[in-house]
């Protein structure tokens, strides 16, 4: 299925969850936040949240900022 991740279209296996996506995209980050179609997906729900074709997902990590 095709999903938009951080603004770019990517191909994911059917049944992929938010947890799968984070594991693939946020290696080395332990403070990650995920929004799916604009809504926050709490860390505790990542493994139980399957992605659907056409979803727009933002995977965010800490950075420097004022």
């Amino acid at each position, binding site marked *: 299925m095709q999903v938009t991740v951080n603004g770019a279209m990517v191909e994911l296996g059917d049944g992929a969850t938010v947890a799968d996506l984070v594991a693939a995209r946020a290696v080395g*980050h332990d403070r990650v936040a995920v929004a799916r179609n604009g809504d926050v997906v709490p860390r505790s729900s990542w493994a139980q949240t399957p992605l659907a074709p056409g979803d727009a997902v933002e995977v965010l990590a800490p*950075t*420097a900022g004022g």
Partner: protein
Amino acid sequence: MTTEDLRTDDLAPALEREEATDPFVLGGETFRSRLLLGTGGVPSLETLEAAVRASGTQLVTVALRRVEASASGSMMQVLERAGVRLLPNTAGCRTAREAVRTAQLAREAFGTPWVKLEVIGDDRTLLPDAVELLDAAEHLVADGFTVLAYTTDDPVLGRRLADVGCAAVMPLGSPIGSGLGIRNPHNIALLREAVAVPVVLDAGIGTASDAALAMELGCDAVLLASAVTRARDPERMALAMRQAVEGGRQALLAGRIPRRWHAEASTSFDGMPEL
């Protein structure tokens, strides 16, 4: 010379006593340091660590952005090692809706309900959008956040932000990163009068005298980033800001002399010889 060599250690006991009687309480937490440091613009992690230590700060702002392969995980390690508390921001947000969602994501990522709320209304000046800001503040307070609101130096808006439950009002001295200092000191003093919550001068600080002025005007703390991170020697500027904030606070508490039009001799004319 290291920053430790530059410290005025003789004054340390007196300053510690002063800290004990003059605590900075923000969002129900007590801080020794009245300097909040932003991490934006920092050239390297080594510099960040040195600046954080030299500044004595206990509260450091961070942001959330799309994850990249580069290890920003190490910035978090530096900050954790320094033992500072994190203050996520909503930098770059333009609407209340966007800021609220960013704050919720930051709460999830950083595990803190504290947020530096920033809602920007103009690209060139990065000035706050008052309408969106107040709307976002109201939503976030209702959602249980400890909201530190980055705002203009308008005392009326400051009061409205305090009224909706912000934990601190953070007026700009001048636009973010401009280094223009405090363009309207009178408004900052009026804002300080207008609200009961802490006032943190946030944005526009260029050098140490700006930070000292903020404290002399009655601000409870100063938040700055670029002035340190983009200085030629960030570690030394961090120390300068620490001393300026402490000096300004002490001067406020000490009570300055009134301004006079003409001189008033400090040496008595009594007993002046005729020569």
